[in-house]
């Protein structure tokens, strides 16, 4: 799968990064840094962009570079899951050991998120 030039969103807070990568029938949202309530508007935008135009078969949300996340991210992930289901796109959420995986463990949400 060819990954074209990424669309890049950078918040004024340098800590949070959000990238959308598009491949053949696959969209990948790559987040980095600290994700909290202030990130909600760009997160909603990137989700609509990822699923919006012509809907991919697979959506990947890559959280491996996220250094901090709280329930704001969980609320957004719930929305991601709902919209991916509605668009018929397979969802994969990838995490690394650390803050995000701990949070998913605390809340028992990991099993609900990926197909």
């Amino acid at each position, binding site marked *: 799968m060819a990954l074209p030039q990424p669309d890049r969103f950078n918040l004024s*807070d340098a*800590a949070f990064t959000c990238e959308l990568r598009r491949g053949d029938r696959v969209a990948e949202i790559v987040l980095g840094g*600290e994700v*909290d*309530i*202030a990130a*909600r508007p760009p997160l909603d935008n990137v989700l609509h962009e990822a699923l919006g135009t012509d809907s991919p078969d697979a959506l990947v949300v890559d959280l491996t570079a996220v250094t*901090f996340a*709280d*329930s*704001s991210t*969980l*609320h957004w992930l*719930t929305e991601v899951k709902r919209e991916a289901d509605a668009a018929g796109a397979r969802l994969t959420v990838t995490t690394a050991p650390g*803050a995000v995986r*701990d*949070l998913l463990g*605390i*809340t028992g949400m990991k099993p609900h998120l990926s197909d």
Partner: protein
Amino acid sequence: MDDTPPSHWSAPATPYEVGRLRRAATAAAAERGLDGRALDHLKLAVSEALTNAVLHAYPENGPPGPVRLEVAGEDGAVRVTVSDRGSGMAVRSGSRGLGLGLGILASVADFCEICTVRGEGMRVSVGFGCQTGC
């Protein structure tokens, strides 16, 4: 937990202040000797309490009210308090959330004290690294 005086900050309860205050609280807790997993958990709990003040304390369409953050303690036993002067906790039928924030905060803290006064606001205190009750 008596010798080092508490650190405190006040800010408008807006999304963009959450990160700044969270990082301030985490740095102050580290200076007071908290580390490792307990420090990560404090950071998470503070973020949840601040986010609640941003989302729930004040009317959606008015100007943001204030949120106050205090970090107290020393020798690895730290208490963080987040308070607002909003509506206090109430039933919200069209609640935007999953009811996760307070649950997460209470799950990771050693103890948690929530005080809410109708029409006057809410105060959430969380303790880390201390085995005192509340």
